């Protein structure tokens, strides 16, 4: 490295090659500390945007009493700010859901994989269209399930996508039957 003359003049005691490596070392050390520091600073800057502690706490499990839901009725409850559809399916609904040719569906899933064993009449799904997040309307569309007003996706009585731009079936929330007429979501 060529040094500017004014620096060379003051260079009395140090050998220039030793100075050379010392400066290189300082450059690299400074750069390394700077890079690590910048990367470390990014962590809180990015992480602060994730759900905060209170939002996560508010996502605790909820209990829902199924007894008041009439045959054929679909209700909407909220869990983790997401709408959850609870559909009390009629005999006809169940039959339609079970007799479909599963292999021909856009997102193939048998009805049995979407309900809890022995509880065929209860379908519990997250009521968010898997296209871009609108809330589909119940008892509408050609498949007696849901119709999404935003871009026209249609779901059947098992909440499976049948037609339209949505790629997936309505998602299933984690839930379990606490008793025959009560479920816990979450």
């Amino acid at each position: 490295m060529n040094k500017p003359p004014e620096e060379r003049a003051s260079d009395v005691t140090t050998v220039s090659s030793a100075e050379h490596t010392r400066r290189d070392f300082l450059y690299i050390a400074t750069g390394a500390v700077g890079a690590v520091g910048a990367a470390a600073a990014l962590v809180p800057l990015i992480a602060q945007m994730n759900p905060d502690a209170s939002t996560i706490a508010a996502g605790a499990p909820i209990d829902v009493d199924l007894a008041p839901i009439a045959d054929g009725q679909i209700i909407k409850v909220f869990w983790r700010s997401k709408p959850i559809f609870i559909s009390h399916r009629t005999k006809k609904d169940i039959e339609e859901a079970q007799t479909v040719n599963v292999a021909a569906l856009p997102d193939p899933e048998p009805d049995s994989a979407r309900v809890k064993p022995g509880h065929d009449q209860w379908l519990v799904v997250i009521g968010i269209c898997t296209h871009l997040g609108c809330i589909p309307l119940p008892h509408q569309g050609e498949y007696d399930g849901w119709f999404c007003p935003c871009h026209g996706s249609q779901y059947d009585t098992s909440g499976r996508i049948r037609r339209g731009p949505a790629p997936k079936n309505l998602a299933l929330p984690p839930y379990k039957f606490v008793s025959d007429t009560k479920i816990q979501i979450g």
Partner: protein
Amino acid sequence: MSGHSTYQPQSKVLQWLEKRLPIGGLVHSSFVVYPVPRNLNYLWTFGGILAFMLGVQIVTGIVLAMHYTPHVDLAFRSVEGIMRDVNYGWLLRYLHANGASMFFLAVYVHMFRGIYYGSYKEPREVLWILGVIIYLLMMATGFMGYVLVWGQMSFWAATVITNLFSAIPGVGDTIVTWLWGGYAVGNPTLNRFYSLHYLLPFVIAGVVVLHIWALHVVGQNNPTGIEPKSEKDTVAFTPYATAKDGFFLAAFVILYAWFVFYIPNFLGHADNYIPANPAVTPTHIVPEWYYLPFYAILRAIPDKLIGVIALGASIVILAFLPWLDTSRVRSARYRPLFRQFFWLFVIVCVGLGWLGSKPPEGIYVILARVFTIYYFAFFLVILPLLGIFEKTKPLPNSISESVLGAKA
């Protein structure tokens, strides 16, 4: 910046300042003696109009922010408070809401002008790309501003647009949760949108400075698309361009005022006067008019991921325009075929906008598909090939010859 400064301030104070910070000279060389092509038409006044509209949005925005509350329970109420209680609040809000529309109207004219006259071609590629960046920032700013009102359209626009990221394979849902700061669009989302809506206009202002800097390095294009060759081809910015810009700006502001005072809600959507309800999606959701063409492209494609990619590509493709257009002739004046494809392109863009406002069914979907294909074909097929096959008309020898005839 070209045009050597002849700036000699009269006043002692200005001379004193000029020795320490030559800002007067900078303004003088950029906006007074700066040479502009003598044949600029009114389409060249939209740059000034855009700068004016950015100023209007910042001034009205800052005062709106003095009365607005970014909280899910209070946001809608505070906007209604601005409309009913704040002194002249109705005017300030209507200026801001319609100001966004006028801003976009102006940017669309500005961009189509650039395409028609080939203003993105060498040496103006960087200038053009800076413009595309400004346009992207405007889209982000306008979207987040619309969410602040926290009406039904605000809420569901936020939901649908943020969900576009859920199409990314693998990490999509993680990204969306991160954007929301929750498990759905909610208070954290509103707060961060407010923070960014306040910030981005100033980022835009910064990029505008770069845009104008790049402009003053390469100079303005003009309706002939040929570069000025002598002094005769240009005139001084002041008084010529200043007067023309000022006159048309005034005309534009009259149009703006007509919207603000006579049809302030014409460009908005009635559903946004219903407070946000996370439990019910409106039966027909549409974005603001200036996003409609892209919305139509999204909906034209029956697959989620490809739809989102097409939406993104339809905007990003603009940045590659300087290299997609292979013709060496800039101005459409001398490109008879390009001119026809250009006007078809304008019709397709407006048509896509109209289709974006229609429900996605039947004939509308089919038309949207045809138009989407033309939109992309214009960039990827027509422009590259035209440069090879088109027989262009002879160019004039100089700008002054094209204006004054061969005698000049």
